[in-house]
Structures are given as C-alpha cells and as structure tokens.
C-alpha cells in the first residue's frame, strides 16, 4: 500500500488501540444508518421467533422474553461506515438463553436474522452463540429509540453493526448460507471489523 502524499493522519499518541483499522471514535454521537423508513413498533404487538433447523421453534412476546434471565453487554460497537463507539451498555437476553429453550439441530450452520421491516442479515452460527449475541432493548439504561432499532434489536458487537439487525423479529437457522439485505447489495458476508471485512471480496 502506497502512502498518500501529505497524509499523516491522527498522531500515534492520539490513536486508540481499541479502534479497529479504518475506524474513528464517534464520541457522544451515535450516527444513524438504515435504508428503510424508521418504523414505530408497539411492544404489545412485538414478537421474537426462532425457527428453521431447531428442535422446538419458539416465539416470545415482549413480556415473555423479559421474563427470561437478563444479560448485559458492555463495550464497543463498530459501524462499517467507519464510526465506532466505546463504553456502550446494552441490556437484554443472550441468544444462548433462547437456544437453550429451542435447541439447535446438528445440521444448522448459518443464521438469517430478520426484522419487522423485512430487513435481513446472515451470520454463521458461531457468531451468535457462546455469549457473542443478544436481543437487546435498553441502551445505557434507557429504552432503545425507534431510530436505533427499538423496541429491540439484535446485538452482535464483534461484527460490523449492520449485522445487529434493528427492529429484530427473529432468527432462522439454516444448513446453507444465504445472503441478507446488505450482503446482496455488496457488503461482506461475515463483517469482522478487525479484518476490515466491509465489502464483498474483502
């Protein structure tokens, strides 16, 4: 890679080792990026469903999912549009807790997350188990706004944030990988920020 004439960038002393390559710290701002109209979803009508290659396909209402063992993520999030945010706290339920109820069949290898808006995003199963993914409804102690995916979104913070589907409505477990919305539109199937897997071909 050839250096750009005249570019020195942020000084090493001000670079944050918590930032993946090519990312900047958005500080107090939380940029918003989604391609559809922001919906307003009543928690009375909200459901979350796990289906596909699981032993017991299950749907939870808002009250039912809140009755499960709560879990919390504290840390960073990284958006493919190059902002990162540190010190975030999300409260919700671990996907592991939901999968203890549904079970997962041996032939399941991939997951398609879907939203109440029709948005989809695909993930390998390894990225949603073992304490790496959640359904969350509170951020920094307050309910998630509509614009950030409220009342509940998927949270997969070790991947670029488009994988953390806003307004999440369910996960389908699949034997073969299929592409979701942004993946069909040129974004990477995996999306690891530390490997800069932003676009197809990275």
């Amino acid at each position, binding site marked *: 890679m050839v250096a750009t004439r005249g*570019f*020195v960038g*942020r000084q090493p002393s001000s670079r944050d080792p918590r930032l993946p390559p090519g990312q900047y710290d958005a500080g107090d701002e939380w940029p*918003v990026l989604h391609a559809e109209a922001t919906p307003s979803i009543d928690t009375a009508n909200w459901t979350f469903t796990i289906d596909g290659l699981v032993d017991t396909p299950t749907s939870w209402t808002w009250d039912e999912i809140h009755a499960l063992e709560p879990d919390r993520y504290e840390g960073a999030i990284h958006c493919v549009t*190059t902002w990162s945010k540190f010190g975030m706290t999300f409260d919700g339920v671990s996907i592991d807790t939901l999968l203890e109820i549904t079970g997962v069949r041996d032939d399941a290898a991939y997951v398609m997350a879907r939203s109440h808006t029709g948005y989809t995003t695909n993930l390998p199963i390894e990225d949603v188990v073992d304490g790496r993914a959640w359904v969350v409804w509170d951020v920094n102690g307050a309910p998630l706004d509509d614009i950030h995916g409220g009342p509940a979104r998927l949270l997969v913070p070790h991947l670029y944030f488009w994988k953390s589907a806003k307004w999440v409505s369910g996960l389908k477990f699949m034997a073969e990988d299929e592409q979701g919305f942004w993946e069909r*539109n040129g974004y990477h199937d995996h999306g690891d920020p530390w490997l800069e897997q*932003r*676009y*197809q071909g990275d």
Partner: protein
Amino acid sequence: MASRSSWQTAVVAAIGPETSHAKTFRLRLTEPRTHRPGQFYVVRLTAPDGYHAQRDYSVASSPGGDDIELTVEMLPDGEVSGFLHNVVEVGDVLEVRGPVGRFFSWDGATPILGLAGGSGVVPLMSMLRLARRANRPDLMRLVVSVRSPADLYYADEISGPETTVVYTRDAPAGSARPVGRLTAEDVRPLVESDREVYVCGSAGFCDGATKLLLEVGVDVQRIRISRWGPTS
C-alpha cells in the same frame, strides 16, 4: 465481484468548488468501471506508517467515461474531508474502490422521485445527469432542500423542468414559495404511483421527508433512503 470492489488508484484530474464547504473532485481511474447512479466510492488515505482512514463518497457524475466525480462536503474536524479539501491537488494519486452500494442505485429506466437535503443531492445528481443525457427528463423528478442559494450544489446545472429547489432559510428574491422546511404540499404534486422514491440527506431530513411521503400516500416499500449523521 471481488475485482469490481478491489482497490485501485486514481489521479485527481480536476478540483472545483460547489459551495464554500463543498468541492468536486474529478478522478481518472486506472481501471474504469461502470457505476449505477446512486452508488459510491470509498476513498482511502494512507500515512507513511501504515495508518489509514477511509470514507464513502457518492458519485455525482453520470455513468460512462474513464472519470468519476465525487463531491465532498468539508466536515468540522473531518479527517478525510479536511485532507481532501486542504491538501489534495490536481495530479495527486488517491486510492479508491468502488462502485459500492446497489440498494440506493438506479437502473436508469424506472421513473423516480428524488428528495435531497443539502449535500444529499450528490447521488441524485448522478441520476439527474443520466436522465438528461438519455433525453428522458420524464424519468426523474427532483426536490432539493437547502438553507440558502449559496448552499445549492451544481447551481448552474441543476435547474430545469425536473427540479424543484426548496429554501429553508433564505430564498432568492422573487421566490413564490415562502422559506421553510419541506412540506407535504411540496411533494404531493410530484408523487405518482409508479415512481420509486430515493431520499438522501441527514438523518433528520430523511425522517422528516419519509413522514411527508407516507402522509401523501407513498407505499413505504417504494422508498429508498440513504441517510447519515448523528441523531439529535
């Protein structure tokens, strides 16, 4: 797929101002690629020690030709936009990849309505240029919302039968429309059932424009949005 999105170098062939805060960079690609209006390129800057920063910029030019034009708004403390505005000169070499982003792109055949807030006009200008070049002004209706005449990009080119400019703070002398934010009455005459709608601008503009579109009866499935910026 991989080759379409791999990095390449481009020579800066021209730089021109659009407004006091925006410049258009004409880039000559080493490997020219055809884009669809609405797509963007990624520009990557690399420091001698390997540190790099990259940002996405929409293509303003219409498809075809070896050059692309990217219009870049100078952001406060913008690491990449500031460098492009203040340091880059004609003849410099930049690393770019693209075109990227198929969702907010236009096929050049479906009739569309574009709603742009400020710098959000850039990808829609690529669409307008294509529609004009194809001699199909009927294909596109464009509404651009800006604070004042000084904030309008492509001012000497954008006017035409397709275009409505809405001024939110200061309007040119003699304007019939009072200054103010986009209203349902601004968009209602332009909405037709077979038109796809492309909305581009800040998060606040996009959410306001989407509400207006739903209010005048546009099906939510026909709206494509490209938004940026923080929430309030």
